[in-house]
């Protein structure tokens, strides 16, 4: 089951408001090379893995990739708010 932790994997603090940068960073979320795509790709690829190493590694990488989207969101949103 998906469980939320009230903590990011790496501290994010933005000092300066920067709308253009916010716009640029938010593009890293979607698209063919974005964080969402990466996470979902690993989550789906694990189903076809034939061995233990592949299954566990892809599942764990997918979990980590889905953490990255939280960082990306915060990096972008604080640049709008500040």
């Amino acid at each position, binding site marked *: 089951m998906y*469980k*939320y*932790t*009230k*903590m*990011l*994997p*790496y*501290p*994010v*603090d933005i000092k300066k408001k920067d709308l253009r940068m916010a716009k640029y960073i938010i593009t890293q979320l979607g698209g063919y090379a974005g964080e969402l795509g990466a996470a979902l790709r690993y989550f789906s690829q694990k189903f076809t893995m*034939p061995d*233990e*190493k592949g299954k*566990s*590694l892809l599942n*764990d*990488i997918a979990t*980590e990739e889905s953490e990255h989207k*939280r960082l990306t*969101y*915060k990096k972008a*949103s*604080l640049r709008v*708010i*500040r």
Partner: protein
Amino acid sequence: MLFDKNGFYMVDVPDKDYNFAVDVMTGSFDRPKLYDLTEGLEKGNLFPALYDPYKNYIPGKLKASTERGKKLIEIQKLDFAITDLNLYLDLHPDDLYAYKMFKTYVMDCKKKKEEFTKIYGPLMLDELTDEYEWSKGVWPWEEGGM
């Protein structure tokens, strides 16, 4: 074919990564060298043998302005070490030394989280406090939360 006759993946890997994998598998060094927790989180990598610097970029130093932030960074350091060792152990499940490190870090992290919960409220829903504090306090995406 995905595997060769020894059961190894037939995928091109950089020499450095390949040597690292071979060293571990053949036992050329009995344990992988690790960064300490702070350097690990700053560089986003616990294994010096696998660290590739990006051009001339030097990772920033971690510092927190509040007491809560300092405590949380300590937890984040351990949390990162656990995640990175988890990924390593997926590929090297027989590395007893790495698993021992992993267990130590998990235990330390649990202890740190309990201390943190007592003062600042729960990080996860199953960490219990006297009153319901889950919905109170700063969320990670807000200013000051991390």
